[in-house]
């Protein structure tokens, strides 16, 4: 809509009419209120222009009016599917500024809740990707399992989606008795369902035909567009901050970084981006098992929480491996209890920018799949 595409009146260019379609903001598979302006030649996509801002809440400006503790609930609402992972880099940035060394037990709780949330996020990502391809049933199998993860996090933090569980220097609450068993049950169930989904969806011939060789993102393009997370790893680049810049206690765990290997299709296509997430769930399960075994029994999770957070003058940038990629927070402090400037590097936003590049020349139905394989959350894109 809006601008009209001008075409030179040459007959060679008039062989077919191009049509501009508005996909979104109300569309079943734009994963929120994203609007894509698509130009199609029959079924072939010739141009994609994403339009953002339907969910803009001016998060960064808003933070300048809030004190450091009050910002955390708003960070939850960025990528609301993996709120635990969102809070972590922010809290770590503040701890870095304040020079707080958090207790060992807190580190392990953080690792476990973040990995649980990573599993929940990937479950939604894989499930909605399958739904974009038309398979509805895996979606509900994953949601059934996700419920178990959500209830663990609910018992820990008191909320089901927007946890506000991390505190600077500790956690809002200690783990409950029986937490370990719950986690192990979840791990068991996740593995069982994943094995089932592999047969039902991932290795289904139709699904492979739909998603393999579609939306190929070469490693060079991925790096040029600063993609991260499974989008980058699906292109075969083994970049994972948990291993490359080990924060917290991640250097103590034994885990692999799954990358797209091109078993089916080519490296960097939708199928490989998707399979990376399934394999990552397994790696998260491994990390959770190790963390549960290593976690110290005693320790006060609230011991190091400062009463009032007042940052020294300066600036800090901290990034962690979010389920969707690198999530970073850049905080400029002027010495008061409110940030002077706050900048969030939203993963979904950066990853979404690659859409126009990789969806040209594919079919209209592929565009939906490519969008699904990028795994965006509009709360983070628009902030």
């Amino acid at each position, binding site marked *: 809509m809006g601008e009209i595409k001008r075409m030179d009146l040459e007959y060679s260019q008039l062989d077919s009419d191009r049509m501009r379609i508005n996909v979104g903001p109300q569309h079943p598979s734009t994963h929120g209120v994203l609007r894509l302006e698509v130009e199609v030649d029959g079924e072939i996509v010739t141009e994609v222009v994403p339009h953002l801002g339907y969910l803009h809440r001016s998060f960064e400006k808003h933070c300048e009016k809030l004190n450091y503790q*009050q910002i955390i609930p708003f960070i939850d609402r960025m990528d609301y599917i993996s709120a635990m992972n969102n809070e972590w880099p922010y809290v770590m940035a503040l701890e870095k500024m304040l020079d707080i060394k958090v207790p060992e037990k807190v580190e392990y709780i953080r690792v476990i809740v973040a990995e649980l949330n990573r599993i929940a996020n990937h479950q939604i990502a894989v499930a909605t990707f399958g739904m974009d391809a038309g398979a509805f*049933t895996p979606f509900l199998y994953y949601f059934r399992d996700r419920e178990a993860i959500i209830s663990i996090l609910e*018992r820990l*933090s*008191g*909320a089901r989606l*927007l946890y506000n569980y991390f505190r600077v220097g500790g956690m809002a609450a200690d783990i409950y008795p029986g937490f370990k068993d719950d986690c192990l049950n979840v791990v068991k169930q996740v593995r069982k369902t994943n094995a089932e989904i592999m*047969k039902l969806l991932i290795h*289904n*011939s139709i699904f492979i035909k739909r998603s393999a060789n579609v939306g190929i993102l070469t490693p060079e393009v991925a790096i040029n567009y600063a993609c991260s997370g499974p989008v980058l790893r699906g292109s075969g680049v083994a970049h994972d901050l948990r291993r490359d810049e080990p924060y917290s206690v991640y250097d103590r765990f034994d885990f692999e970084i799954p990358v797209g290997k091109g078993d089916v299709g080519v490296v960097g296509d939708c199928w490989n981006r998707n399979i990376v997430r399934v394999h990552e769930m397994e790696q998260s399960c491994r990390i959770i098992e190790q963390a549960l075994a290593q976690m110290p029994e005693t320790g006060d999770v609230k011991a190091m929480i400062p009463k009032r957070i007042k940052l020294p003058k300066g600036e800090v940038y901290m990034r962690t491996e979010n389920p969707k990629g690198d999530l970073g927070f850049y905080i400029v402090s002027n010495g008061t209890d409110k940030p002077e400037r706050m900048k969030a590097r939203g993963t979904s936003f950066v990853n979404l920018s690659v859409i126009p590049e990789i969806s040209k020349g594919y079919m209209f139905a592929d565009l939906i799949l490519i969008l699904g394989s990028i795994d965006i959350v509009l709360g983070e894109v628009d902030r």
Partner: protein
Amino acid sequence: MFEYFKNIWSGFTTALHGMAITSSHIFAKSVTIQYPDEKLTLPSNARNRLQLEMSRCNACNSCAVACPVNCITVEGTRVSPDDPQQDVHWDGKPRKMWVTRYEIDFAKCCFCGLCQSACPTDAIKHTVEYEYSEYDRNKLLYKFQTLSPAEAEEKKRLLAEFRAKEKEKECSSTAGKAHEAKE
């Protein structure tokens, strides 16, 4: 040619595999919870509607300060020693502040739990009560103060009177002192 038949065969068999999996779920136990009839038990720390325990609140305003969305409004006035009505806190200590206004707008509340952790006396707490939807947005403005507006005015007046009396006394005493000093 071989590839062609292999593709057909894999398409056929993977579809059958999928159908076997879906059919194996038909007789599995359903996970649906029929909400109004059966309900999930929420953990005791679940963050739902806020509840204020008036016998603990001393109108210190820390919850209103901690709230990121400014949904809590607290006003208090000191208890005048002359007040005929004296109240005690839950632990038997005498009340020092009357809570003349304590309002929470649940239309604004984001259920972050920061007021709960900021409260020094554990007066404000999240409960497990979540079924309180209203058709009228204004009905979500909960007033927790136990004093009526008239009573609140009365308390304020009493305090002002007491203050004025104090000041008078102070003035007279200082005036007296000054007088003595002069002499």
